[in-house]
């Protein structure tokens, strides 16, 4: 494996990390507001299939992305109605949402299997995108890659620096207190859940429109669950989630490149374990180091809120 392979490899890593980052950032906001939505996989599938159909029908990627975000948000609205308004159990509802999403997306997509669409175009700035190394690394991605990075910054800023971010966190840490000083906990959580759904939808759309521009049943293939794990891995902080998504994507891709190079004869099963192994080791290091005690999940995570009457 030579050095000039590092650039294409990094591009592949970015492609693997981006859908995870979208879904994980969305779920992070949801969880910081105190809601646990395990339906990420289902929402991603909804985004993937609806985004795909929109592009196949209209030829417009912008419209496809909008449709994907709305589809994810639509699924999230259903989840919100059940858990926030009807106060159903969040874990059970989230799991049901995933299973529902798998079935629904398959049903909607039946007629669209086997139709190719043009991939989401990549940025092409004359002069800049052609530069060696820097060109493809900085100026050669599709819009979703830049959007995912911008959203990481945006969400980090929103949670840490804005009044609305503080209110959202208050709902996740002490729902009763937030309620008693006059904030509408349920409304805040609805907003967070809808945002999370839209983000999952975009993550799914990345798969069906950019990574592999096609629709195949169940094509998210478990990434929703990895995104969920990344939120806990990143201890509910956007920057750590970004790091986690790129670490996980990076190790996954690195092992594929290592296999293809044939320079290491490590059994492929061990290679496949690497991303998970790296995750576990890092979590252990974090948990045993000076960061200990700062891993706490939002105090109200997964608890149903009923306003005292």
């Amino acid at each position, binding site marked *: *494996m030579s050095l000039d*392979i590092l650039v*294409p*490899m990094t591009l*592949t890593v970015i*492609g*693997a990390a981006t*859908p995870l980052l979208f879904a994980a950032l969305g779920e992070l906001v949801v969880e910081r507001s105190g809601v646990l939505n395990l339906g990420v996989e289902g929402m991603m599938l909804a985004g993937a299939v609806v985004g795909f159909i929109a592009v196949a029908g209209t030829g417009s990627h912008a419209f496809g992305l909008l449709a994907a975000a709305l589809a994810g948000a639509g699924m999230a609205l259903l989840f919100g109605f059940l858990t926030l308004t009807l106060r159903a159990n969040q874990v059970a509802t989230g799991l049901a949402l995933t299973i529902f999403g*798998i079935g629904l997306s*398959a049903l909607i*997509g*039946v007629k669209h*299997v*086997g*139709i*190719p669409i043009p*991939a989401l175009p990549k940025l092409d700035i004359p002069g800049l995108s052609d530069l060696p190394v820097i060109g493809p690394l900085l100026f050669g991605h599709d819009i979703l890659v830049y959007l995912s990075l911008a959203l990481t910054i945006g969400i980090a800023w929103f949670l840490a620096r804005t009044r609305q971010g503080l209110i959202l966190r208050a709902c996740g840490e002490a729902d009763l207190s937030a309620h008693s000083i006059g904030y509408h906990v349920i409304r805040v959580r609805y907003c967070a859940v809808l945002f999370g759904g839209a983000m999952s939808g975009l993550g799914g759309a990345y*798969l069906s429109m950019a*990574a*592999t*521009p*096609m629709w*195949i*049943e*169940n*094509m998210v*293939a*478990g*990434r929703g669950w990895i995104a969920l794990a990344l939120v806990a891995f990143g201890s509910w902080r956007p920057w750590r989630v970004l790091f986690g998504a790129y670490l996980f994507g990076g190790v*996954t*891709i690195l092992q*594929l*490149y290592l*296999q*293809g*190079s*044939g320079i290491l004869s490590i059994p*492929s*099963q061990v*290679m*496949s374990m690497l991303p998970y192994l790296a995750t576990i080791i890092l979590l252990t290091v974090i948990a045993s180091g000076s960061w200990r005690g700062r891993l706490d999940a939002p105090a109200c995570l997964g608890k149903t809120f009923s306003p005292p009457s």
Partner: protein
Amino acid sequence: MLLNINRRRFLQGTAAAATGLVAVPGLHSARAAEPLKVGFVYVGPIGDYGFTHGHDVGRRELEKHYGDKVKTTYVENVAEGPDAERVIRQLAQQGNSLIFTTSFGFMEQTLRVAKQFPKVKFEHCTGYKTAPNMSAYNSRFYEGRAIVGHIAGKLSKTGKIGYVASFPIPEVVMGINATALAARKVRPDAEVRVVWVNSWFDPAKESDAAKALIDQGVDIMTQHTDSPAPLQVAEARGILGVGQASDMRQYAPKAQLTAIVDEWGDYYIDRAKAVMDGTWKSQSVWYGFKEHMLKMAPYGDAVPEALRKECDAMVADTISGKFHAFSGPIKNQKGEVVVKAGERMSDADLLKMNWYVEGVTA
């Protein structure tokens, strides 16, 4: 005491009468008029456009062939493991008299359910275990892989052939080896580079694996996973590739050289007929080009006329028995001769193949 015996005798009598009833000709024919219920258990979604899709095409051919006489049910996305056993048992309980389970990992589960339902006929795909009411059937995919290897060896410029692989089971190892052997016959320095994704179906990961291979000089993409993703990457990156299990031309109109297409329909029709006629017997079959269990998809534009003829001749020779993908001399990765010149590997050896031939980088 006396009463007790009488009651027991009475019960025995009733049981005998009940058994007799089933054998009454009139009733029997009334049952035969009901459609034959056939169940299918799939490991992936029928919309995978690959392996499971191929089986479902076979199932639809079966329904079309017999019309009202056959009623099929399928369960898709069944995980290999305990879940499969539950699904297979459920199909048996629902009155299916013939059940096809179409993944290697369903073998033990099929066997267990087969023992519990001795009257139901089971057919397991790509495994090796059988029972009095359980058959094994498989396709000689490697025959198609040899054609693919031949084309790859002829058309590759770099001599590096990429192979996106699922799990290192004999079935997959055999395909890799058949590709390498045929490629090296026409291009002695050809190399098959394998990347395992440890999944049958994960489009994004399959696509990443394909990118990893192309970035390292591979210019022909082959795969033993179930989605068209690697072929789509080949198209996008301007190299050539081969479809898997179904004709995947629409994903790669320029890149697809050909595809190994599974054809299960004829077999399903035959076996359903055997059950209807009462001639079904447990068997273990391994069919190939000859029995029409697989075929090559129409060649792509990148395959020149002369090469098409060579490939057609290879298929004909495979059918006549003149050509066998695993005829000696075959060397392993260390360069030791494993199969001597003039010898052919036996089916038994092929089915437990766990070593790579020379020229495979895995």
